[in-house]
């Protein structure tokens, strides 16, 4: 029988993998994918708790998270395009002009 715990475990696993992607990948596009995975991990927790508590509030909050993820992806991808136009690369290690 699948209970809430299994869903929370899947969320924790996905969040950890997303965090590892953000830590270890070097190009900005992959880092953005890791952020999307972490948002998805939060979403599965929202939906699982919503189901377990019998309400729909968690699902509505998950919809808001999806909307925020879409807006964030649009702006971040515009920034990546701009980064490529300015530096000729999407390597986040190269974008250190503020570091001197």
């Amino acid at each position, binding site marked *: 029988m*699948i209970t809430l715990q299994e869903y929370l475990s899947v969320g924790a696993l996905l969040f950890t993998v997303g965090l590892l*992607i953000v830590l270890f990948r070097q190009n900005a596009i992959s880092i953005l994918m890791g952020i999307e995975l972490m948002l998805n991990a939060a979403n599965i927790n929202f939906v699982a708790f919503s189901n377990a508590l019998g309400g729909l509030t968690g699902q509505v909050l998950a919809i808001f998270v999806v909307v925020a993820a879409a807006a964030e992806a649009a702006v971040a991808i515009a920034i990546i395009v701009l980064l490529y136009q300015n530096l000729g690369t999407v390597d986040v290690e190269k974008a250190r002009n503020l570091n001197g």
Partner: protein
Amino acid sequence: MSHLLPDILFYVFSALSVAGAVLVLVNRNPMTCAMSLVVSVLSLAILYLLLSAHFLAVAQMIVYAGAIVVLFIFVIMLLNLTDEELGRFRFSLFKTIGAFVAVATLLAVAPDIRVSIPAPAAGDAGAPAGYGSTKAVGKLLFGEFLLPFELTSILILSAMVAGVVLAKRELQPKKTHSLVDWLLGFFRT
């Protein structure tokens, strides 16, 4: 047998979802990464269906697999990046320590994920009719959550404007042409 089907579906699609995420982590080709992201996101949509969040499952498919991943693929193909640049990993002492702490926290917390909610078990069987449908979610969205919903539209509008402004900005700003300049030039000729 039929009461085992949701369990089997849960295990298959949660494994697929985590496997897709791991492939995003280890794969060098960015296009393969995007496809793995699609696998992970669609498996999560199936998990939402198992939790009887029908509207959210369809929204997940449309927004993630239909919009966000298309944006990713668009940028990957537009920028024409070299593979060796994209496949590079960065390692440093602090990041490795951070990764160890993250994984160790997961391993420490995972056995303790226990829930004290005396809940109906997750799954389609225990949910009342209409739970998670478009009608039920929409009533809540346009009733109790009306103000956040309308604020969301402002968020999307600002994101759209920001995307257009950022992507269209010229590297060397051109000489600005005001209406007065145009009129002066018009009368001079």
